[in-house]
């Protein structure tokens, strides 16, 4: 009987003296960006055995990545991303390598040894250089504050504790006859949850570090929050189109990242703090022109992979927000594609209208002429359609589907 009472007391009072369980950072406290300093230096080489082991594992992966066909074969884009990263680090050589990989998802990641992956899906959603810099800064924050290593050590400590707890419960149950497994399970559940809390704390710190780098480099600090505002809006549009309620998957106790809304608010608040402290007339910049110049040549392939995700809500939201900088033939073409593939009641008409608008732009992609041609034929304007298809063949005589288009023309 005494054993039961003791267990219940312990559960209600919380686990005093068990520091491991609540280790981690209070996830709700906003980190002050200016309080952060790098924990590694240029030319850093790990000394501890566990860190060296992690670096060695990453080496193998980096070797494979460097020769992978997922790597974007575009030296201009690769060196641009690398240049911004260097700029953020104040041109100090921390040995961080950046790799842009072809993947339509909005994501970027940092490995323990300073290798950074940036997905093309991220580039598709950036509106200016400051926004890209905000994400690159966040990832640099992970490396400069040694998050991967700390996360590994945290997991090791907590999994060891969980193993010991499980074993102790087994031993105690066998020895005393009462059931100690419920207590063991609640302790271990708290350990598991604390692993996620620790991870979320690190993400908040990386957000703050990114802001610090952003501001020190002269980029608009508000860009970081803007990235999240855009992502949240896109996800809401996607949910609406799928007739679902928007749910933030990171708003969970088992999430490795803080809720998106919270991140946006914290970043916005910290950005305001930073901006209010700037007294000189130096203006923060977003370097939109430089970004648009880089993005223009790759816009077609970025949107092509986005459309293939079959998420018309998100794709149309993205197209409309990019169109704030002005519609182009490429954007109108992909608007048409989004409607055509959605295939709803009036979508054929919408797609036809979009293709018509696309070809009105000089420099519209050849694919727009093809799509416009087929749409015109389908809607009964055979002559206009054939002319458009012929124009497509003129623009792209060695297209893979040239033979098929020619076949259509002789029908």
């Amino acid at each position: 009987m005494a054993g039961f009472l003791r267990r219940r007391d312990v559960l209600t009072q919380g686990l005093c003296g068990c520091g491991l369980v609540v280790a981690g950072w209070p996830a709700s406290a906003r980190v002050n960006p200016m309080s952060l300093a790098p924990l590694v230096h240029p030319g850093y080489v790990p000394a501890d055995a566990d860190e060296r082991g992690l670096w060695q594992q990453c080496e193998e992966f980096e070797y494979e990545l460097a020769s992978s066909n997922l790597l974007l074969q575009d030296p201009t884009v690769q060196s641009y991303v690398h240049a911004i990263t260097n700029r953020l680090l104040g041109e100090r050589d921390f040995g961080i390598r950046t790799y842009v990989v072809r993947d339509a998802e909005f994501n970027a990641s940092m490995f323990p040894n300073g290798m950074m992956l940036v997905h093309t899906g991220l580039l598709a959603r950036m509106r200016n250089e400051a926004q890209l810099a905000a994400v690159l800064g966040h990832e640099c924050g992970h490396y400069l504050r040694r998050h991967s290593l700390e996360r590994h050590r945290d997991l090791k400590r907590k999994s060891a504790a969980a193993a010991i707890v499980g074993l102790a419960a087994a031993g105690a149950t066998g020895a005393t006859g009462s059931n100690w497994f419920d207590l063991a399970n609640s302790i271990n559940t708290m350990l598991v949850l604390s692993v996620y809390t620790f991870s979320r704390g690190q993400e908040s710190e990386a957000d703050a570090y990114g802001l610090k780098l952003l501001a020190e480099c002269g980029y608009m600090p508000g860009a970081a929050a803007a990235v999240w505002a855009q992502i949240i809006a896109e996800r809401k549009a996607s949910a609406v189109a799928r007739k679902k309620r928007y749910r933030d998957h990171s708003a969970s106790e088992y999430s490795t990242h803080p809720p998106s809304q919270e991140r946006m608010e914290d970043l916005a608040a910290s950005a305001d703090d930073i901006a209010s402290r700037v007294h000189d007339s130096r203006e923060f910049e977003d370097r939109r022109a430089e970004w648009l110049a880089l993005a223009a040549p790759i816009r077609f392939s970025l949107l092509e992979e986005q459309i293939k995700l079959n998420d018309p809500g998100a794709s149309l939201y993205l197209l409309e927000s990019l169109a704030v900088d002005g519609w182009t033939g490429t954007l109108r073409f992909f608007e048409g594609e989004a409607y055509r593939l959605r295939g709803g009641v009036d979508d054929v008409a919408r797609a036809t209208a979009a293709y018509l608008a696309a070809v009105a732009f000089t420099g519209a992609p050849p694919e727009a002429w093809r799509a416009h041609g087929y749409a015109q034929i389908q809607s009964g304007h055979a002559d206009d359609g054939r002319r458009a298809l012929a124009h497509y063949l003129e623009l792209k005589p060695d297209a893979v589907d040239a033979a098929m288009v020619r076949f259509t023309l002789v029908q």
Partner: protein
Amino acid sequence: MVAAAVMSVTACTTTRQVADTSFTPPQGDYRLIVMQPDISVGLLTAGGVVEQREDWTDQATANVLQSLRAMHAARGGNAMIAATREESGWDVAEVTDLVRLHEAVGASITLHKYLGLALPTKKNRFDWTLGEQAVEFGRATRFDYALFLHAQDSFSSAGRVALQVAGFLSCAVGVCVMATGGQQSAFASLVDLKTGQVVWFNTLASSVGDIRTAEGADKLVKALLGDMKPGAPVGKPAG
């Protein structure tokens, strides 16, 4: 109820070869390249996380390479041991690709021939290939066979050992919680570069052995590669 705790120390190494019925081990004058072995040695921590150790991995890789060289020197014949991708004599990116392809094929063989998920179309056949890429590799480098080797070893940390001891004790009070110790596992495959087919495959699992030492690496290499048997009627392990 107190069960008597039996502390049994089983030191077993098991290997199991699979090959197609038409396979005979290469004889005579053939050119063999042993691709850069993929070795990783780590520490098995108390919580079960295996943490790779760079010094152990480097040591084990060097030892395994040494054992491979010794084995092939003793056999005579024309074997080249490629310590790195560059040494294989082909474009590094292509070699990396081929090694990755082999990892996927090796995993498929393990899954469908060893772990019981038999494929109906491969029930009485051993039919896996690395395809055109391997044939190109053979043509470019003029090797007849390529041998791929993958090995993993782990050793219990002090905390893990303590957990294992405590686990034995918990058995004594009737509730057994057993934590596993470090494990050694490896697989090797022989690819005929004229056809691209995987012609022979062997796996090894052991709870003892230490490839960080020269003797341990020798034992692994001998167990894995020393006794290549001709193909048996498929479905039955050849040794």
